[in-house]
C-alpha cells in the first residue's frame, strides 16, 4: 500500500510539473465537446436550386413560387440553358437543377400532362434523395392545386383516410445536440484514457527509466496500479467537467436517469479503457509505435461505435465488430441514462459486457507484460 502511495505521488508530480500536458488533457477535450456538437448536424436544409425556365409563363412562375415558399429550397439563380446550370452544380453553388420545358403551361392546360427535368448532384446520396423527395412532395401539392384551379373537379366527397399522429419521446424538440453531446463525451474520455496510459508507459520504456523501476522491489502489480490510478482519476475529472460544465451548463442537457449509476458505469468502463491502453503499451517499443497502434484501433472504435451512423443499419459482420467494441456500449449507456432515464435493470447486460472487457484487457496486458520485461 505504501509503495503504491509513493508511486502515485511520483506520477502525479510528473503530470502536474508538465506545464504543457495538463492543459492538453483538460482544455482540448472540453473545447471539442463544446464545438463539435454544433458542427455535427445531418439535417438536410437549404437545398440550393438552379432554375432553367424556358417557358416563363404564369404556370411556371406559380410553380417556382410554390418551391421557394416551401422553405426547403434556396433559389441560387436563373440560368439560360442546361449546360450553364450544370456549371453551377460543378462549382457546388447549386445542388439541384430544375428545367421547365417550353410550352409548359399550354401542355399542362391542354393535355393535363407534362414532364419536368430535375437533375440532382448525387455525390452525397442521402442529400440528393432527400432533396428530390422534397421536390416531388411539392409537385404533388402543386398538381392538386392546379386541378382545383383549372379543372372543375368536384372535390366535395371526403375520402376515407387514416391519419398519423406522431409523438417523439425523450427528446420532443428533436434536438440533435442532445444526441451528440453524450456520445462525444464518451469518445473523448476513451481517447484520453487509452492514449495517455499507452504513451505514458511506453515513454518510460523509450527513455529507459522503466529499467530503474524494474530493479527496485516494486512489484509488477504495484507498478501497473500506480500507472492506472492517476489516469483513472483524470478520466473521471474530464468526464465530470464535461458533464456538468459543458453538457449541463452550456447545452442544458440534464441527465434524466441516475447520475450515480452513470458514474458507476464510467468507473468500470475506464478500467477497461485503461486496460486497453496498457495492452498497447506492452506491444509497443516506442511512443511513435504506440501512437500508430492506438490510432488504428481508436479510429475503428469511433467509426464503429454508432456515434455518427446507426449500428442497426450495418451488415451482419459489421454488427459483430460493433459489438466487440467497448465504445459502443459506453455511448449506448450514456444515451440511455442521460436521455431516457434508463435504470440499473435496463443496463445490466452492458455492465456485464464492460466488466468482461475490463477483465480481458487487463488480464491480457498483465500476462503479456510479465513476458516482455
Amino acid at each position, binding site marked *: 500500500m505504501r509503495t503504491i502511495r509513493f508511486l502515485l505521488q511520483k506520477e502525479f508530480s510528473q503530470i502536474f510539473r508538465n506545464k504543457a500536458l495538463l492543459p*492538453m488533457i483538460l482544455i482540448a477535450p472540453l473545447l471539442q465537446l463544446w464545438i463539435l456538437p454544433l*458542427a455535427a*448536424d*445531418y439535417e438536410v*436544409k*437549404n437545398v440550393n436550386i438552379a432554375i432553367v425556365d424556358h417557358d416563363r409563363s404564369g404556370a411556371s412562375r406559380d410553380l417556382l413560387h410554390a418551391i421557394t415558399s416551401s422553405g426547403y429550397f434556396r433559389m441560387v439563380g436563373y440560368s439560360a440553358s442546361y449546360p450553364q446550370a450544370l456549371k453551377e452544380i460543378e*462549382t457546388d453553388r447549386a445542388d439541384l437543377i430544375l428545367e421547365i420545358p417550353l410550352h409548359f403551361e399550354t401542355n399542362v392546360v391542354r393535355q393535363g*400532362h407534362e*414532364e*419536368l*427535368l*430535375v*437533375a*440532382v448532384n*448525387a*455525390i*452525397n*446520396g442521402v*442529400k440528393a434523395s432527400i432533396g428530390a423527395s422534397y421536390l416531388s412532395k411539392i*409537385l404533388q401539392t402543386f*398538381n392538386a392545386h*392546379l*386541378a382545383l384551379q383549372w*379543372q372543375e*373537379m368536384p372535390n366535395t366527397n*371526403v*375520402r*376515407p383516410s*387514416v391519419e*398519423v399522429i*406522431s*409523438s417523439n*419521446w*425523450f*427528446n420532443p424538440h*428533436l434536438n440533435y445536440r442532445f*444526441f451528440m453531446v453524450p456520445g462525444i463525451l464518451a469518445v473523448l474520455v476513451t*481517447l484520453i484514457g487509452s*492514449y495517455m496510459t499507452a504513451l505514458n508507459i511506453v515513454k518510460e520504456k*523509450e527513455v529507459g527509466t522503466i529499467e530503474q523501476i524494474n530493479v527496485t522491489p516494486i512489484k509488477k502489480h504495484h507498478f501497473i496500479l500506480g500507472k492506472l490510478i492517476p489516469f483513472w482519476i483524470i478520466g473521471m475529472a474530464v468526464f465530470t467537467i464535461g458533464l456538468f460544465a459543458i453538457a449541463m451548463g452550456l447545452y442544458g442537457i440534464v441527465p434524466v436517469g441516475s447520475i450515480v449509476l452513470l458514474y458507476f458505469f464510467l468507473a468500470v468502463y475506464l478500467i477497461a479503457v485503461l486496460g486497453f491502453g496498457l495492452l498497447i503499451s506492452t506491444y509497443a517499443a516506442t*511512443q*511513435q*509505435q504506440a501512437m*500508430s*497502434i492506438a*490510432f*488504428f484501433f481508436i*479510429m*475503428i472504435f469511433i*467509426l*464503429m461505435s454508432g456515434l455518427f*451512423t*446507426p449500428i*442497426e*443499419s*450495418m451488415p451482419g459482420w459489421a454488427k459483430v465488430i460493433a459489438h466487440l467494441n467497448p465504445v459502443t456500449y459506453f455511448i449506448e449507456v450514456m*444515451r*440511455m441514462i442521460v436521455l*431516457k432515464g434508463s435504470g440499473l435493470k*435496463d443496463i445490466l447486460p452492458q455492465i456485464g459486457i464492460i466488466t468482461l472487457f475490463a477483465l480481458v484487457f487487463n488480464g491480457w496486458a498483465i500476462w503479456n507484460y510479465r513476458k516482455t520485461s
Partner: protein
Amino acid sequence: MKRFIAFIKKEFLHVFRDRKSLLMLFGLPIAQIILFGFALTNEINHAKILIVDQAKDRASAEIIQKIAASRYFEITDYNADANSIEPEFKKGNVTLALVFPNHLYGDLLHNNNASVQVIADASDPNTATTLTNYIQSIISEYNQQVALATTAGIRIIPQIRMLYNPELKAAPNFVPGVIALILMLVCVMMTSVSIVREKEMGTMEVLLVSPFRPLFVVLSKAVPYLVLSLINLAVILLLSVFLMDLPVKGSIILLFAESTLFIITALSLGLLISTATASQEIAMLLSLMGMLLPTLLFSGFMFPIENMPWPLQLISHIIPARWFYIIVKSIMIKGLGLSAIWKETLILAGMAAFFLVVSIMKFKKRLE
C-alpha cells in the same frame, strides 16, 4: 546533394524498420475504405418496431402487413401491451412503437377518418424523424389503396436524373473524404512525432552539429512520409476502382499533383508542431486532438458545412482538408480540370507557404 540522399536513406531506414507502425499506416486506409464502403451508412434499415394492436381488424392487419414487407422495419412484437412501450424504449430494444386504436376499420368506414399513433424514441432525432416519415408514407400508400376516387387529372411528373452517382452509392462521397483524412493524419502526426523524437532522445543535437544544414535535416525527415503518403493514395485509388467500382473520372496526373501539394501542406504543419513542442507526448496529443476530429468534421464529408453556425463555417476555412476534399471530389467524381479548382489550389499553396515560413523561422530561433 550526396549528403542529402544519405540523410533521406537514414530516414527511410527508420520508417521501414518500425514494422508495427508501418503495418498500421497501410492498414488504416484499407480498413477505413472497407468500413465506409460496406459498414457505415446514414440510411436506416431494419429498425426495430413494436406494434400495439388494439384494433385487430382488416385495416390494422393490412397496414401491419405493409410494414412487415418493408425493408426499413423489423417487427419485434406484433401484439404488445401499451404499457410495455416505455420499458422497451428504456432497454433500447425498439426505436418505434405503433398504436392502432380500437375500431380502426369501423371509424375509417363510418367517419371517413381514423388515426393511428406513432411513438418514436427520439433520443436519436434523425432516426426518429426518418422512421416516422417511413410510417407516414406507408400509411398514405394504404390510404390511396382505400380511396375510392383517384387524384385529379393533372399530373406534372418530375423526371429525376441523379448526376455523378446514379445509384446513390455512398462511395463517391466518402472516398475523397478518406483520402483527405488519411493523408492529413499520416503526414501531420508522423512528421511531428519523428522530429520531436530526435529532440527528446538527444540525437537532434548530434545531427545539428554535423556539417549538414539544419534545414535539410528537417526536410529529409519529411521525404519518407511524402513517399508513404503517395503509396497510400495509390492504394486507396486502387481499392476505390476495383472494390468500390469508382473510377477516377478526371486526370490522374492532376490528382497526384494536387495530392502532393496537400501532402506538402500537411508536412509543413507537422513541422510547425514539432518545432513548437518539446516532447512526443505533447506533439501527439496536439496533432491527434487538434487534427483528428476537426479534420473529420470540418472537411465537410460527414456533416454538411452549410448547416454549421457561421463561426464554425469560418473556422472550416482554415482546415486544409476542406479545400483538398473539394479538389479530390472535383477531379475524381466530376471529372473537372484545373480551371475549376485553381482557387482551392491557390489556397492550399498559400497555407503550405505560410506553415513552412513560420516553422523555418521558429526552427532557426531554437538553434540560437
